[in-house]
Structures are given as structure tokens and as C-alpha cells.
């Protein structure tokens, strides 16, 4: 493995690891705020137990997310110094605001976790809501910074120099809205289905059923609403990418030849040598419609993109298929869940629905990782689109491969410990929050 590939792998690993924790840190506070609210309103002790149990989980995820985020803020410079030297002052604005948002989140979390029975109960509830809002704000800001790499704005690039820098224009680059919207909804889908899945499993095991049923419902409703909204946001994103990064769209769809009434390619194995996709299902005109709202519109293919400017096709294509496939699956499950809630109450008692939720536990996060692969791999070979190549940004320090190995080992061990601790949290529910209500 050469140093450039090692640097890219280390960055991908760090982001891929961090994103799971930040999604949970962004979304769980809203679940807790709901159950906390229900407790304060109904005085039903189970809701208090749910809130507390979740908050223990959040503390674990938040700490892990905070340290992995700290690492990232250094890694930008450790791995991509040439990029940061020029990009820092241009796209740094959202990071400085994110610093504030994250700080507020940490303060509010201190109040929330340690504030039981110490403050006015509504003040305490409110601090939990602040954790969620500031977490969400952090997420939007960080994604806005990433969006700038896909859609650079707020400067003029003249003869290798970055002139007329405007950090505000850079923050509100063309891609920020569609990317931030897609990411936030994805965080709700992924966390909602992951949490619902875990509680569904415990319901199937007939353990602390009241506790798990209440938890399940809150998480499932959040996840299901988000899963129904996500296709709309996906459509906005697709149209934007078609306009802004035709090379990325072409790679996502393994769309080799520019053509009118382009078909949507589902699945298949891209063959870059022969410029075809084998074994794929093709829906005529659908890609044109998806990209330009017109079944006959022309869609730029990879043949219009010089070879040296093409992103890796196979990875981008597979990742996109995985993301969309999971999105559709979770949307269908969401529809079934809402039918169960409103029309077919009997379904809620049947095992198949819960089993589907258990099956879906990891799917949302797989989709999040796949989506980020599409965004980041699809941006290559650029680190700043059409301005700076990733390979020109990498650190001159040799031996990055060793640092990649070390971080891989650290993040794998951390993943195991976090999973192990969650398992223990869940196993201890009956002991900690026994079946007989007690104050």
C-alpha cells in the first residue's frame, strides 16, 4: 500500500467510524426528549427508565464521537496539509461555528446527564433538547464544509492562487443544502431503525416488554417518518449532482455513453474495459427523468469525462446501489409499520413485523456508509472539485501506512468495546430498571 492510498484509507476509516457516533449523538437526544416529555406528562415511570437507559448509551457514543471528531480536526492537517493550507481560510467558517455548536452540546450534555433531580424538571428537559439541536447544527455545518469540496465557492482560482476569498459564500455553497438535508434525514433513518431493531429483538425475547415496547415505538416512528422523507431528499440530491458533478452521477450509474432518454441501471457489474454493465436491469428513460425531470433529456456519460478526471466507477456504482436499495427497503417497511399503527393493529402483535425490524438494525448505517462512499469516492480525483487533486494535497511524510494500521487497530478495538458495552447495557435492563416500578 503506498502512502497516498494509506492516507486516503486512514481518512475514510476515521470518517466512517466517526459518522456512526455523530449520527447517534445527533439523533438520540430527540428520542430521549420525547420519552422524557412523556414521563413528565404522564408520570409513567417506564418512560423515565427509557430516558435514563438511552442517556447512558448516548454518553458512551458521545464520548467516542467527541474523541474521534477531535482526531479528525487534526487529521485534516496531518494527512492533507496542502489542502488545508489553501482551503482552511475559505471553508473554515462552518468549522468555527461548529466549534461553538459542539461546545454547547457538551455543556448541555453535562447538565442533562448529571442534572436529574437537581434542576427544575423542565429546565432539565430543555437541556436535553439543546443537546439535540446543537448536535444537529454541528452536523449541518460539517456537511456544509464537505459540500464545499464538491461545489467550491467563495473564491476565484486564478493562476494557481486563491483570490477574493469570501468565507460566507463558501459556507453557503450550492451543495450545502441538498447534502445537509440528505445527511440529517439519513441520520434519523439509521439511528431510528438501529434503535428500533435492538428493542424489537428484546420484545421477541419477551424481556421487559413494556420497557422495550415503549422504546421501540419512539425510535420506529422517528425512523419511519425519516425513511418516507428520504426519497424526496434523494431526488433533490440526484438533480443537483447531475448538474454540478456529472462525472459523479455517471460513475454512480456506471453510465458510460452520453445519450438521450438514458436508462436507469439497477445492479449489474460495470465492465470498464468494454464500457458496459453486465447483468443489469435497465429502466428506459428513468435516469434522464431522475437527473433532469425529463424522460428524453441528455445525460452526460463517462465518455465526456477525460480518463484522468474520472472517479473509480465500480466502487461508486456499487455503493450507490446499496444506498438506494436499502433506502427503498426501509421505506417499504415504514409504510408497513404505519399501516400497522393505523389500520391493522393486529400486525403489531405478530412476529414477522418485529423480525423485519430486527433484520433492519444495521441497514440504515450501511446505507449511511455507502452514501458517504458515493459522495467521497465519487468526488475523486479531486479534493477540491476542478481545483486541487487529492494526490497533490497529501502529506510529504512517508510511512503513513503504519499510522493507518495503528488507527485501524484502535478503531476496531473501540468498535468491539462499544458493542460489548451496549450488549451489557441491554442485558442489565431488568436489573437496573426492574419490572416492578420504583421511584
Amino acid at each position: 500500500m503506498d502512502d497516498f492510498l494509506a492516507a486516503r484509507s486512514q481518512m475514510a476509516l476515521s470518517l466512517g467510524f466517526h459518522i456512526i457516533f455523530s449520527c447517534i449523538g445527533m439523533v438520540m437526544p430527540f428520542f430521549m426528549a420525547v420519552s422524557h416529555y412523556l414521563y413528565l406528562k404522564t408520570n409513567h415511570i417506564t418512560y423515565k427508565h427509557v430516558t435514563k437507559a438511552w442517556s447512558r448509551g448516548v454518553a458512551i457514543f458521545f464520548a467516542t464521537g467527541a474523541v474521534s471528531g477531535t482526531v479528525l480536526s487534526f487529521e485534516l492537517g496531518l494527512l492533507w496539509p496542502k489542502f488545508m493550507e489553501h482551503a482552511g481560510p475559505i471553508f473554515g467558517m462552518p468549522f468555527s461555528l461548529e466549534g461553538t455548536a459542539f461546545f454547547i452540546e457538551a455543556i448541555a450534555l453535562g447538565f442533562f446527564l448529571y442534572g436529574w433531580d437537581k434542576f427544575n424538571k423542565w429546565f432539565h428537559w430543555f437541556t436535553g433538547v439543546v443537546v439535540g439541536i446543537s448536535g444537529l447544527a454541528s452536523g449541518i455545518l460539517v456537511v456544509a464544509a464537505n459540500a464545499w469540496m464538491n461545489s467550491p465557492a467563495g473564491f476565484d482560482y486564478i493562476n494557481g492562487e486563491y483570490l477574493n476569498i469570501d468565507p460566507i459564500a463558501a459556507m453557503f455553497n450550492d451543495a450545502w443544502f441538498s447534502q445537509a438535508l440528505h445527511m440529517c434525514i439519513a441520520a434519523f433513518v439509521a439511528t431510528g431503525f438501529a434503535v428500533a431493531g435492538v428493542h424489537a429483538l428484546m420484545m421477541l425475547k419477551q424481556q421487559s416488554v413494556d420497557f422495550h415496547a415503549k422504546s421501540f415505538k419512539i425510535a420506529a416512528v422517528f425512523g419511519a417518518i425519516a425513511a418516507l422523507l428520504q426519497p424526496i431528499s434523494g431526488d433533490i440530491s440526484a438533480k443537483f449532482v447531475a448538474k454540478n458533478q456529472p462525472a459523479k452521477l455517471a460513475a454512480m450509474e456506471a453510465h458510460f455513453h452520453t445519450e438521450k432518454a438514458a436508462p436507469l441501471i439497477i445492479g449489474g457489474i460495470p465492465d470498464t474495459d468494454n464500457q458496459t454493465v453486465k447483468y443489469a436491469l435497465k429502466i428506459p428513460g428513468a435516469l434522464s427523468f431522475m437527473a433532469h425531470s425529463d424522460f428524453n433529456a441528455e445525460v452526460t456519460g463517462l465518455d465526456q469525462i477525460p480518463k484522468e478526471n474520472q472517479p473509480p466507477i465500480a466502487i461508486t456504482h456499487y455503493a450507490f446501489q446499496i444506498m438506494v436499495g436499502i433506502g427503498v427497503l426501509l421505506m417499504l417497511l415504514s409504510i408497513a409499520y404505519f399501516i400497522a399503527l393505523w389500520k391493522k393493529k393486529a400486525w403489531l402483535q405478530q412476529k414477522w413485523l418485529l423480525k423485519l425490524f430486527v433484520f433492519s438494525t444495521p441497514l440504515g448505517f450501511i446505507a449511511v456508509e455507502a452514501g458517504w462512499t458515493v459522495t467521497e469516492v465519487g468526488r475523486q480525483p479531486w479534493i477540491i472539485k476542478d481545483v486541487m487533486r487529492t494526490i497533490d494535497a497529501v502529506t510529504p511524510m512517508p510511512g503513513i501506512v503504519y499510522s493507518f494500521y495503528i488507527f485501524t487497530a484502535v478503531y476496531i478495538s473501540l468498535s468491539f468495546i462499544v458493542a460489548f458495552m451496549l450488549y451489557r447495557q441491554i442485558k442489565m435492563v431488568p436489573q437496573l430498571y426492574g419490572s416492578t416500578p420504583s421511584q
Partner: protein
Amino acid sequence: MIYVVIAFLWTSILLYLILGGADFGAGILELFTSDANKTKTRKTMYRAIGPIWEANHMWLIIAIVILFVGFPSIYTTMSTFMHIPLVLMLLGIIARGTAFTFRHYDAVKDEMQKIYNPIFVYSSFVTPLFLGIIAGSTVTRSINPQANNFLDAYIFSWLNAFSFAVGLFTVAICGFLAAVFIIGQTQEQSERERFIRKAKAFNIMAVLAGAVVFGVSFIEDIPLTTWVFGSWPGVAAFILATISVIVLWSIWHKPYTNTMRFLAGFQVSMILFITTWEHYPNIVLLKNGDALSLLEEQGNAKTIDALAWALLLGSIFILPTLVYLIYSFQKNPATDKT
């Protein structure tokens, strides 16, 4: 506006040194606690830092963000030539933050604690050590952007006796800050006495480590004495710090815990003041005699303005809430059950 940004940068570094330092110090103290007292120390410590430790480490992020937004060439020079100590420090930050949370939030308290505890304790030692090494390396003129081999560029940029001495000095200061902070959190007299003894010991260690730093500076030809005693603000800060040490030693057994905390924090700010004042606006001294200056390496004016406004706006939200957080849990410490 550049001065607003520089003031925020300096303050963030200072607050990270004091608050984050006290936090690291808690782990360092545990390293120097007999097994018999460990459980109790852990409890007291947890009461003291549990609710605020996450916030304490945000200052590092603020400082880093100010550097890469406002002074990108300083950030990239440091992250290129300090790559190795920075990675070691980051591994320390990961290990420490997670071990601290895991040992408290693990639903079952069993053998796993024997894994979390040493990780927490040793990473609390290693992280400030490398922080100090990095800080020391900014003034040793060991960073050589023209270096053409691996050792000169990436190893000898930080591996020298002076930087190492500064690292140990930083560790001693962290232990000192933590002990002084925790004195006010203790609930029993015997425990209080124990932390007073620790605070004294770490204060002495810090002074000795400081002396070592001076000693090494003579060997390595670093004009530290001229920097500290060469101008009146340096001398004044040194005298004030010395006076505050004397005052601190005269009130150990009196109930003025907040005064003690103030004095300890004051000493650290004087140290940071002395070490930064003489070089200002330079922040990194390079091998070829050049220096990276905060005024010359600043990003463009529009970015600096926006950054300053973001920081000012942010502090309106952050400072009152942070003060209220610390105040609330001072008055009413966290309990061990959550």
C-alpha cells in the same frame, strides 16, 4: 480584528491548559495513588470532573479551528513536522476519553475495570507529555522545512531534551492543577489532607521540572533565561507567579479552596504569558532563523473578520452556560448514580 482572533487563540490554549490540564491531572494523580486509596480517589475525582470533562476538551478544538482557519500555514507546518508526536497525543486523547467514559458507564463493574483503569491512567500521562513536547518544539528551532531526510524532518523536529523537559513540566503542572482543584471537592478531612499533600508534592515537582527546563536550555543553547528575564513584563510575571506560590503555600490548611484554585490557575497563566510574550507575534521558531508569525501568516482579512465574529458570537452562548455548569455542580456535586 486579528487581535480578537489572537486573544481567543491564546485564551483557548490557556483554558485548555488549565481545565483540560486539571482533567489530565486527575488521571496522573491516580497513577500516584496507593491501591488502598484508589477507589475513593476515583469517586472524588469523578464527582469533580464528571459533568465538565467533555467541555474541558472543547478548548483544544477551538484552538485548532482558529489555527487552521486563521493561520493555515502555521497549522500545516506544525501538522507536517509534528506529525508523530501529534499522532501519539491523539492516540492518548482517544484512549483517555473513551476509557474514562467506559469505566463509568459500563453496566457491569467487573474485570473490565482492570482494563479501563490503566488505559485511563497512562493515557492521562502520555497526552500532556506529548502536548508539552510539541509546545517545547515550537521554540527550539528544531523544525526545519528544508530538511531532506526523514530523521531531520520528522524525528529531530521534536525529539530533543528541551522539548522532553517541557513535556515533563506540563505533566507536573497538570497533576498540580488537579490536586488543587480536587481539594475543594473532598468531603472528609483525611481525604482533604491527602490531596493537600499531593498538591504540595506536585507543586514541588513542577518547580523542579521547571528548573530542569532551564538547565537543559543552557545545554541546548536555547536563550530561555534571556526570554524570561530579558524584559520587564517577563520579570514582572515571574515575580507575580512566585508571590502567588508563596501565598498558596501559606493557605493550604485554610478553607479558601477557591482562592487556591485561582492562585494555581494564575500561576499557569503567568507561565504561558512568559513563554509567549517574548516571541509574540512569532509562534513557531524555525531552524533557518525564520519564524512563523501570527501577524504575517494570517489568512485573508475577510476570513479573519468572519472568524472573529463567529468567536465573539460563540462566546456569548458558551461562556455564561459554561460558568453556570461549573457553578451548578460545584454547589451540588454529581452523584455516582446516573
